[in-house]
């Protein structure tokens, strides 16, 4: 044990006494990775000793504590907003799949979001939807009016800003109103399930995903096809929303609960039907002028000759 004598420092009183009290404690562990070091190196101060104790004795406890907590930074730092983008690619795909295949009895929020709401999905799904609706509407109008001689193609760029306003307002204001309403009802009736604002925004954002392929398919200029698409999209996303919010209002007064679900579905219907009506021209109306133009031209030709 000559090494222990070499390492004893006279100045650091507390360490010297502890080493003297426990001479078997190893100061440097070279043997191997399997053993946990009790003290690491010659201590240089009392602060270091506290660290050593933590690392030596409470190793497992500390890691468990860190795993359970989420670091919460104040809202003016960048890291605060990074917690809302803490999703991987496969998680986003899973959430989108969950919004496309509503399983009765399975709650979208509990199953997929699991207290990790993200803002990536809602934001970029809404952005894609805005451009999908504007571009599809423009394309569909172009194809409908294709044969007409008096039609001059315009890109209708103003409709992009209108679409953006409508969709982002729906995706943020309706969840805000719903969250406020649920908060108010929670203060009156004790509900088992309650959602945070971001989880509601998340559900609404992902439920709008079905409208992207619907908007692209709305290019087909057949009224029947368009209305079938509206019904299907409404059925899928409406049921996702209804199944998510039914547990939150179930314990309430029967009428209030039903009214809430009906309002949610009604607003969703209003959005889809309104977008269809405003951005996509009706297909059959414009076939009449083409047949009327031809007789006029023959009459003019007859008159001029």
């Amino acid at each position, binding site marked *: 044990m000559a090494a222990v004598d070499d390492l004893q420092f006279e100045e650091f009183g507390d360490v010297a006494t502890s080493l003297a009290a426990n001479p078997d404690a190893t100061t440097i562990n070279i043997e191997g990775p399997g053993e946990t070091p009790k003290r690491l190196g010659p201590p240089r101060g009392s602060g270091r000793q506290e660290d050593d104790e933590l690392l030596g004795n409470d190793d497992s406890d500390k890691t468990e504590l860190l795993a359970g907590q989420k670091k919460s930074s104040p809202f003016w730092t960048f890291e605060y907003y990074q917690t809302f*983008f803490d999703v*991987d690619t496969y998680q986003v795909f899973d959430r989108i799949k969950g919004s496309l295949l509503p399983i009765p009895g399975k709650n979208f929020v509990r199953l997929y979001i699991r207290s990790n709401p993200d803002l990536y999905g809602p934001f970029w799904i809404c952005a894609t939807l805005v451009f999908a609706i504007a571009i599809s509407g*423009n394309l569909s109008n172009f194809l409908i009016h294709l044969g007409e001689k008096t039609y001059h193609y315009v*890109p*209708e760029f103003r409709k992009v800003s209108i679409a953006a306003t409508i969709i982002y307002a729906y995706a943020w204001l309706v969840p805000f109103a719903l969250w406020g309403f649920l908060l108010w009802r929670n203060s009156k009736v004790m509900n088992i399930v309650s959602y945070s604002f971001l989880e509601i925004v998340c559900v609404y954002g992902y439920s709008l995903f079905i409208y992207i392929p619907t908007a692209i398919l709305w290019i087909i200029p057949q009224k029947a096809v368009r209305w079938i698409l509206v019904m299907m999209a409404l059925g899928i996303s409406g049921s996702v929303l209804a199944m998510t919010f039914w547990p939150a209002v179930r314990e309430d007064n029967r009428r209030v609960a039903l009214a809430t679900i009906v309002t949610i579905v009604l607003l969703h219907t209003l959005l889809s039907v309104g977008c269809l009506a405003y951005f996509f021209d009706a297909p059959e109306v414009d076939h009449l002028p083409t047949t009327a133009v031809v007789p006029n031209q023959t009459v003019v030709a007859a008159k001029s000759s």
Partner: protein
Amino acid sequence: FAGLSDISISQDIPVEGEITIPMRSRIREFDSSTLNESVQNTIMRDLKAVGKKFMHVLYPRKSNTLLRDWDLWGPLVLCVTLALMLQRGSADSENDGGPQFAEVFVIIWFGAVTITLNSKLLGGNISFFQSLCVLGYCILPLTVALLVCRLVLLAKPGPINFIVRLFVVIMMFAWSIVASTAFLADSQPPNRKALAVYPVFLFYFVISWMILTFTP
């Protein structure tokens, strides 16, 4: 304690050498020489840097030049060119036409800023201005597509005209995506690459749509 006996610090290892700060006197000369040089030299140096980056976009290889020496001159020039050529004329009184100058400008710059914020929020380690620089420079193929489209539109309108324009725009759109992905993809964590690349795809798709639907 067997291993401890092998550790020994001998007291008499001489440490000697020279500490010099090279280039110090030369840096002073360099500074004053850029101050005294002719205006042409200064402008040509910046123009050459911008031109070199254009070449890197046209032939995308994995290199760090775009990221290391970023500048925003190229993106500004490209954005202004694109917005000037895409805007509808002032004599056009229709309400629903193509985008105005301000709309194109805002879409490009706010789109680039949003994509940069998105990639930083997802945990990428690229700086704000480096990302803006890459996104701006990779608009170059689409600007070339717009010039070609304007030339093609001088010819007779018809389906062949449209198909030529469509083909050119699609090719340049793919080129932009490949160029920007070559520079941006490495800065993302590997399990989020698709999440960071998709907004770039949407951004260039919207610009391509504006170019394709341009009618003079």
